[in-house]
């Protein structure tokens, strides 16, 4: 009888603990979903990159541009049909809008707004899986904004274009995805 009672108590505790562990913050789940999607993209990019000769620093600008172009073409082929929202799904985009809103409130808000206004704003027609237009400046992204967004793998960056938030592949210069009207 004593053993049964102890066993029941242990079972109850296990159920309680596992139940608590399954309670995941919905915001964290969305960030995890985003990270999984961007990691999948990076995995694909690495696979494609592996089919090209490795590029080290070189004095040949032609070699650099050729590598960038070839990488972009092969990634585009692999991601054929990718559209806006493939990585920034509606739920993930909503979470990003919330995080951007947090970054642009409080004591840092005026700094972020000022930084965006002074950062040589650009107007570009955004198309997923197409290169960021050559010769168009890249608007700087305010550090406070970057501190409030999920961290990205190397060579993938967040860029502000107009009031859109763009996910850009620095190696291939491709637009991976974007959130329209993300910046209030």
């Amino acid at each position, binding site marked *: 009888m004593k053993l049964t009672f102890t066993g029941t108590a242990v079972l109850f505790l296990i159920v309680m603990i596992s139940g608590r562990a399954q309670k995941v913050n919905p915001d964290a789940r969305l960030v995890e979903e985003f990270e999984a999607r961007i990691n999948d993209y990076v995995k694909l990019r690495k696979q494609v990159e592996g089919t090209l000769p490795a590029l*080290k620093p070189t004095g040949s*600008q032609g070699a650099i541009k050729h590598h960038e172009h070839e990488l972009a073409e092969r990634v585009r082929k692999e991601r054929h049909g990718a559209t806006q929202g493939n990585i920034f799904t509606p739920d993930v985009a909503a979470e990003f809008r919330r995080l951007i809103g947090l970054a642009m409130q409080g004591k840092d808000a005026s700094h972020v707004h*000022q*930084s965006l206004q*002074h*950062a040589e704003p650009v107007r570009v027609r955004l198309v997923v899986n197409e290169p960021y237009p*050559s010769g168009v400046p890249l608007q*700087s*992204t305010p*550090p406070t904004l970057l501190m409030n967004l999920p961290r990205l793998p190397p060579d993938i960056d967040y860029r502000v274009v107009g009031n859109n938030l763009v996910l850009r592949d620095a190696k291939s210069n491709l637009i991976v995805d974007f959130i329209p009207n993300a910046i209030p």
Partner: protein
Amino acid sequence: MRRFTFLSVLAILVVARGQAPAPELKLPVAANSVRFAVIGDSGTGDRAQYEVGEQMARYHASFPFDFVLMMGDNIYGSETPADMKRKFEDPYKPLLDAGVKFYACLGNHDNPNQRLYKPFNMGGQRFYSFKKGNVSFFALDSNYMDPAELEWLTTQLSQSGSAWNICYFHHPLYTHARFHGADVDLRTRIEPIFEKAGVNVVLTGHQHVYERIKPQNGIYYFVLGNSGELRFHDLRPSPDTIKGFDTDRTFMLVEIAGDTFNFQTISRTGQTVDSGALPRQPKPNQTNGPIR
């Protein structure tokens, strides 16, 4: 007789042209000093950029600097191999031929893949550091100052051990140029790191003017973004500007000799627009010293 006079005048002109006066130098040219030049927003490929390059080569003869720091916007517009030649290799050919190395940082007009262009010596990184004598240099990417870069900078500065720490990047933390203004959000994030680590000098570009700012929290700030581009009369008067110049292109020569940062800013036409000798500030944990 008339013919003789004409030939004499011609000969005098040829000789005079061959013996151009030595440039006015306001630097000590001390033994074992660290010598370099600074250019910013240079990559237009226009005549003015070439003329700045010619002045730099002229000064190099009497002030043999070893390297050049580039404040970003190294290549405007397209960046084909022909563009790299026209907007970088040709304007600075005499310097490149003399073995002068260029260390670039990225501006908002630069494709980040410029980090792979070997003559820019970025080692494939968008931010990096290097050391010359008793001076550590930190080339930062102010277009994209993410937490990874801030952490890298904090660690690198804490491990520097150099007498002088110099940070350079594109966007100015302080300026009185009208067009862009200072990047206050960037300043909020990196200035405390500079102060804590004892950064001595900050060099930036982006504004197409030359400006030397009054030391801010003990740090010397320079803006030099007019080595190719120029925004005429863009500076507004400010008591925080020690010297401003917005009517022509410039470059700067620097010589760090012991505890002194000597500098001379020179225009496209060879005019000295600013010069001085700044003492090294004490490290943050030092209690006595000049100004920090």
